[in-house]
């Protein structure tokens, strides 16, 4: 049995279905991330676990005990809030001590624990300061210390980096990871930022409209997205649409409109004639000024029109079109250097291995 088990949570606000049978398990020490656009239900799920939202159905079980009906203060769950929610009228010490004092622990042990926590987050010197005297990054570390000081059964992180600027984000992400790893505490993070999710989580659950669309490791979700929504939420992707012509084991051929036959892998459940989409990641496409070798049979090869080349520092993005279908390529500088001298609108040759394309069923418009 898993450490935390979220079972079929359901919730509606009026006629809007916010949670639609959300279920997942988290093992001890596992870091799970709920990832999705705003309104997908990820925050409601977090609030349901924390006890701030009473769901219409489903339950949350920790170590075999159902939390249903328990108020937040009886759940022993540490939460790091989006704006940190540090108590402004209390010092850093009092903030971290708050949970322990609410548990009526002896003042000496409170003091020891707070001291330990502040040492852990390297802010021992700031014990007597007030939150507004700290930088954003320091506030976050205090919020973390406060959440784990109570030795919670579970740690919830609500958009932990959304208040930091891009540069600090990466730094704090690494720092939080260093703090989390040795604790081995079951952690659920909520974010809308794919990179954050991939960097922190062992397992990512991609949510849309109150449902979990796919769960898996970052690599699984990036490499084998369940549908176009997941593919375009995690990373960039090129999409070709068409009808399935023939299916072989693992590989199928699609008649892509205006492009021609395209071969790509699939995960089963498809039939000839199905409306499908082929997802190709920009970094999986190669480009050159001459057609690729004709001998590699499994490769998709096309003549394309160059739209533009954009140098973005650590990568270069090349936009092309096969007929009317836009194809975006990305790679390092060297990759783009082969196109030197090619003008906008001229022909280039692009190709990708058939196992680099993924066929998914086309979703009905909703």
């Amino acid at each position, binding site marked *: 049995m898993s450490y935390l088990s979220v079972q079929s949570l359901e919730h509606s606000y009026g006629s809007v279905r916010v949670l639609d049978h959300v279920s997942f398990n988290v093992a001890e020490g596992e870091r799970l991330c709920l990832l999705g656009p705003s309104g997908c239900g990820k925050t409601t799920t977090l609030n349901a676990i924390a006890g701030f939202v009473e769901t219409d159905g489903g339950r949350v079980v920790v170590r075999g005990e159902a939390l249903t009906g328990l108020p937040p203060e009886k759940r022993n769950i540490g939460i790091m*809030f989006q704006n940190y*929610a540090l108590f402004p009228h209390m010092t850093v010490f009092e903030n971290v001590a*708050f949970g322990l004092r609410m548990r009526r622990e002896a003042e000496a042990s409170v003091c020891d624990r707070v001291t330990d926590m502040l040492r852990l987050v390297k802010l021992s010197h700031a014990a007597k300061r007030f939150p507004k005297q700290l930088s954003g990054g320091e506030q976050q570390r205090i919020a973390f210390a406060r*959440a784990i000081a109570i030795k919670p059964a579970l740690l919830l992180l609500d958009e932990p980096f959304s208040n930091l600027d891009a540069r600090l984000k990466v730094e704090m992400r690494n720092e939080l990871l260093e703090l989390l790893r040795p604790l081995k505490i079951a952690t659920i993070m909520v974010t809308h930022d794919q990179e954050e999710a991939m960097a922190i989580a062992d397992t990512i659950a991609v949510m849309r409209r109150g449902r979990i669309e796919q769960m898996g490791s970052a690599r699984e979700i990036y490499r084998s997205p369940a549908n176009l929504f997941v593919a375009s939420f995690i990373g960039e992707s090129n999409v070709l649409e068409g009808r399935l012509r023939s299916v072989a084991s693992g590989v199928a051929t699609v008649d892509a409109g205006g492009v021609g036959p395209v071969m790509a892998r699939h995960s089963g459940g498809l039939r000839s004639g199905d409306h499908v989409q082929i997802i190709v990641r920009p970094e999986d496409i190669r480009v050159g000024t001459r057609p690729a070798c004709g001998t590699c049979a499994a490769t998709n090869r096309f003549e394309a029109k160059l739209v533009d080349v954009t140098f973005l520092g650590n990568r270069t993005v090349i936009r092309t079109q096969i007929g009317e279908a836009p194809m975006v390529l990305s790679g390092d500088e060297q990759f783009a250097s082969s196109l030197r001298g090619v003008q906008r609108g001229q022909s280039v040759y692009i190709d990708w291995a058939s196992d680099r394309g993924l066929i998914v069923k086309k979703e009905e418009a909703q």
Partner: protein
Amino acid sequence: MRKYLLPVYAVAFFTFLLAPVLALTIGSLTEANYVSFPPEGLSLRWYMKIFAEQESMYALIMSLGVATAAATVATAMALPTALALHRYRTPLNKVVYLLVMTPAMLPAVFLGLAFLLFYSALGFGGTPLSLVAGHIMIATPFAVSMNMVGLASNDGALERAARSLGASPIMAFRKITVPSISWSLFAGWGFAFMISFGSLEVSLFLSTSTMVTLPVQIYTGLEWSPLDPSLTAVSSGLVIVTLTVLILTARFVKIDRFLQR
């Protein structure tokens, strides 16, 4: 040039409009037996005189007492009301809000008349209780709206954070919410006090010959002798108390925030 036109205009205009206030105050420094501007000689004799006048001192104390009682009761009532209004977003909520605000919206004359008749019918007309009750009524809306501003500017996540750390709803309210909005409690009390202290209308209807508040004292004094400088001196007492409370209150509200948002 254009840059200075507007403020100059504004200063000029309001200085003119406020001139009466200054003229009155300065005029009461006269040595003559009537208010005049410019004053005939300068003295504080009329200010000295009122300390000897029992009625004026009595009215001041009555006004202070009534306003303190009314502001305190109003604040005590305002906090739970504001909490309810802040927390629950039901259609009932809007009705309650309108009800709460009504006394601030309706003409005070009407309210004064209504209180007079109703409290008399209930059998406590003409008692100090009726005077205080009327003042509570007109002061409460201001305390409520100030408390609602306080609650609205309070981050709800703080209370949730306290709950997640093991605080019961009551503990979270006491330890986290109340300290965070304490400024609005003070400011609400201050506004309620000012409203009550300065109110003539309701007092006119509810005061009796033995319960005279300062504004009533000034008004009745005026009917008797409009240019009596001691009247002006008395009304200075009104202004001084009001401004003192206002300044103390403004420290809590941080008037700048309102001015600059």
